[in-house]
């Protein structure tokens, strides 16, 4: 089956600085592919190259089997739509609705279709009430939602989404993920760049981690989590026995007070969470709750990218 997006040995250099090195990436139709990486990893450059805003210095790009450079820019741009990372990418003097109608027509919709679709998309992103309001009066989050609505005007085979949830509140971020998921269900391939690690679990099908322009990990979220064993937990304690928790966990874990009945527990090499909790319970400590202090995804990301 032809991949919706295939990137082969892509490279980009800005003078002496090599921002992308031999990047390979494949996104299938209906797949949500998260592109993770710290600042300066090359995520946005990669998306700009895919969108034809910047040339690659080496490598090949295929969207639905069509190779970049072998078809005209106009045809190429019909194959994707994009949610750019900046907030101000719409006309501030026009209403949200007028912005969408304008861009809808640039995408080739008739005026009637553009109007109808604009209304539908504004409804989808929860901006129906602000449709006639000037974009200049929108909050950052609303402008981001508008950018998402604009990308959904047509149903292209590929959606390039750059830091879509960056300035959104939790509900806005959740809605955006739902919309991306729906687009994927309709058959679109979604390339989703983010720095919010918490959002990829249960959302992304495949994850690629970039660091300094190089692919450092490619796999599913489960495979990413599997690269580390979580070692730091936050436990909530009800009653404490005669011995202090620190003494009970001698040789198993280090424990420090986190305040208000909470302790931070760091497992020692070779120790398991079960053995630590068992030691506490046997010592008369009532363990009310236990959760990861940082998620396994975050821990894996930190380990792979070397970020702190």
């Amino acid at each position, binding site marked *: 089956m032809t991949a919706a997006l295939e990137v082969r040995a892509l490279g980009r250099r800005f003078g002496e600085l090599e921002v992308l090195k031999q990047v390979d990436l494949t996104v299938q139709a209906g797949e949500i592919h998260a592109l993770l990486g710290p600042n300066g990893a090359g995520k946005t450059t990669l998306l700009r190259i895919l969108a*034809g805003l910047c040339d690659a210095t080496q490598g090949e790009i295929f969207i639905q089997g069509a190779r970049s450079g072998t078809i005209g820019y*106009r045809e190429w741009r019909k194959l994707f739509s994009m949610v750019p990372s900046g907030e*101000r*990418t719409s006309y501030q003097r*026009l209403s949200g609705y007028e912005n969408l109608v*304008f861009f809808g027509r640039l995408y080739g919709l008739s005026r009637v*279709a553009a109007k109808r679709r604009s209304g539908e998309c504004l409804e989808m992103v929860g901006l129906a009430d602000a449709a006639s309001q000037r974009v200049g009066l929108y909050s950052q989050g609303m402008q981001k939602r508008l950018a998402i609505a604009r990308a959904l005007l047509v149903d292209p085979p590929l959606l390039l989404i750059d830091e879509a949830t960056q300035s959104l509140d939790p509900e806005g971020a959740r809605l955006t993920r739902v919309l991306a998921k729906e687009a994927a269900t309709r058959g679109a391939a979604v390339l989703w760049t983010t720095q919010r690690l918490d959002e990829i679990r249960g959302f992304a099908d495949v994850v690629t981690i970039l660091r300094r322009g190089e692919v450092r990990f490619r796999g599913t979220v489960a495979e990413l989590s599997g690269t580390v064993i979580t070692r730091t937990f936050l436990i909530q304690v009800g009653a404490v026995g005669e011995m202090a928790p620190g003494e009970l966990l001698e040789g198993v874990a280090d424990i420090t007070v986190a305040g208000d009945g909470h302790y931070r527990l760091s497992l020692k090499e070779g120790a398991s969470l079960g053995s630590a909790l068992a030691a506490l319970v046997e010592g008369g400590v009532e363990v009310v709750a236990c959760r990861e202090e940082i998620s396994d995804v975050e821990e894996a990301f930190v380990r792979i990218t070397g970020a702190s």
Partner: protein
Amino acid sequence: MIDAHRPAVVEEIAKLGAFFRRNLLIAVSYRMAFIADWFNLVLQLVIFSLVGRLVDPTRIPEVGGRAISYVEFVTVGIALMSFVQIALSRVLSAIRQEQLIGTLDFLLTTPIAPTTLQIGLVVYDLFYVPIRTGIFLALASLFFDISLSPSGLLPALVIMLAFIPFVWGLGMISSAATLTFRRGTGVVGLITAAFTILSAAYIPLEALPGWARAFASVNPFTLALTSAREVLLGGAGWAPVGRAVSVFLPLAAVSVAIGVFSFRLAMRRERRLGTLGGY
């Protein structure tokens, strides 16, 4: 969802309609700028009519055998040069504006042909500027005792329409320079001012020094001005139109060709450097 059956040309023309509407809505949203533009135009006319009182009427050349006042002479100059100025500056500032407000990048991710983008950015002005010029001339003839020949209006429009693509081509060359060097407005303003002074827009050719007269005689702006004066003030009918059109059309072909080429070259350079959309 996209109408795949529409021929590409029809689709691109429809996009020009979208650009026109967008620019119209944006222009209407800046009410004060619109009013200031007209105020500035009328103010220029008032100033020149006062200056006209100081000018010896015998130093103003006859047009079509008719003695004209300085206000009449300069009104056509103001009309045409403000038309040139707007045409040039709008083409130039359109790209810059998109860069500054952050919409250029996104525009360039939509499936539009480069030519559609270039025309689209100024399509509103291509309609607005001739209308503005016409209204200005009508107001001037009403309030400043300027005797325009009604039979010259249509020939003047044809001269302007033949002149637009030439100016537009210059605008595209300027916008390519803006895309490349980011700040080209000052240079373009300087060049426009030089062309204006050396074109008999405000000062009769006869009053210019020899070297300036030599430049003005080959300046296409001079031809546009003298032709417009002949038809509007001298009642020359269609006679000057043929000569003007025969000069402007090849000039327009060259300036548009260079404009399109230089714009595409600038875009290619920006993509290569990865600096498109930066400012």
